[in-house]
């Protein structure tokens, strides 16, 4: 099994997770995540040949409701919670993309 020696590139993972970590956080997480992953190696010792993964412990298939249009939340009510929005245009506002 690969990845038995946890050697975690915290900066790369932080970029994937969209977190701007401080240098102190990067150092702390490098140590702590390695410790946690070393502890998780006990899982990798277990023989799982031919064992299907369980993604969900639900009893079976999801329950579908009828595909009927019902009223949803009012746009103005939803936009009221946004950090920045244009109520007249009905849009969320964000800083420039490029």
């Amino acid at each position: 099994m690969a990845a038995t020696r946890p050697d975690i590139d915290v900066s790369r993972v932080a970029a994937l997770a969209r977190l701007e970590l401080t240098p102190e956080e990067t150092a702390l997480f490098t140590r702590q995540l390695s410790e946690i992953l070393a502890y998780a190696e006990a899982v990798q010792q277990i023989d799982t040949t031919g064992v299907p993964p369980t993604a969900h412990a639900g009893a079976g298939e999801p329950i579908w409701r009828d595909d009927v249009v019902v009223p949803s939340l009012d746009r103005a009510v939803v936009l009221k919670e946004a950090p920045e929005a244009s109520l007249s245009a009905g849009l969320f506002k964000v800083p420039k993309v490029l």
Partner: protein
Amino acid sequence: MPHSSAHSARALRDAIANGQLTAEAACQAALDRIAARDPELHAFHTVFAERALERARALDRSTGPRGPLHGVPIALKDNITVAGTVTTAGSKMLATYRPPYDATVVERLEAAGAIVIGKTICDEFSMGSSTENCAFGPSRNPWNPDRAPGGSSGGSAVAVAAGMTPLALGSDTGGSIRQPAAFCGVVGLKPTYGRVSRYGLIAYASSLDQIGPFATTVRDAALCLDVISGPDPKDSTAAAVEPPKFEAALTGDIAGLRVGVPRGWLREGVDTEVMARFEESLATLERLGAVVSEIELPHSRVAVPVYYLVATAEASANLARFDGVRYGYRAPDARDLGEMYDRTRDQGFGPEVKRRIMLGTYVLSAGYYDAYYVKAQQVRTLIRRDFDEAFADVDVVATPTTPTAAFPLGALRDDPLKMYLADTFTVSAPLAGLPAISVPCGWTDDRLPVGLQLTGRAWDEATILRVADAFERTRH
């Protein structure tokens, strides 16, 4: 003086029904109790005094049919949405968030006549075992304020243990109802996955999260489960299984019931006093006519690392929604969209949430996905199969709820791995989707409560409630 069953939800409801008490007086009594105890214990983040009293007066005026919780005050973990009121999930990210909709459990509680009185302290996005990861915490254990109340639903456990409200709701992902119930000496129930709608529950790990009650008696927990359970068109994982009447299952009779004890798993390390209370509890169950035998749950020994791989992977995906765009916190002064995302998430999340998002992102990333995430899901299958095999021979599985009684606040704060081990006996049930209950079973020499955990077959809350109730009757 924490609590007595004289303050049970059922007794309160009956007193209101008999005209001995108005709903308003019951609500005011809860508010007075909160005013007296909460400055020290800090169970609540928000108290809705006016909203609650108004609803109580409306109930007193109404002449229609009375619900099963008519006039009963209830506290909610602050990750369950109540329309128009601040719902933080214990995070700076949502410090001022007012959700525009009610959780399904809130609609059902209010339809049953319950009065939501406030929102309780919890670890941020339910990630923690002590409430110390809350941006607004911690809560304190009513039996010893220097001790942790447990977590993540710690404030709900404290509210019930200190007699502020007879009922509270929490959510349980890896033990977040049962562990604080054990630490605070109250009853806490995690239902079968899919028994209770998760609509309006702020997600942590969606394949594990389940809402459930805290109560001073098993009967109250059953009464509350009766109200909140059942299918919901707004949650495709709320199963189309019509729940039985749980309260009716409490017959007091457990003669011939088969109790399995996973001795091998318990050798992982249980405090001697906790183990002594556990052995006494088994003897009590035998006196009641139950047959106790040893079973094996070999893969539960790695349930804690399996849980932390599965739950953090799901959390890293669920918490991607907090990006400063639609609601919640946004970092100021970002030059562009990417910087706004990154800074919002760094400033809005606390350290444990970042740690778990990082771990989850790592185990889902290319090159590690099969080795960690898929592997953990395969072992999750083995953990489920162990229970399936055990339940061929026994009706319930008994363990201590926690390896130790409540630890001191601050003791494990800087050692996340040690904190995770507080979940040793509680993570298996959610991984397998099974119902489990913690019921008080005695005390340590330091006067800290100890919990007995009973795990049942899927959809069979009735049996664990019946056993817990029969056990509880021997203690009153």
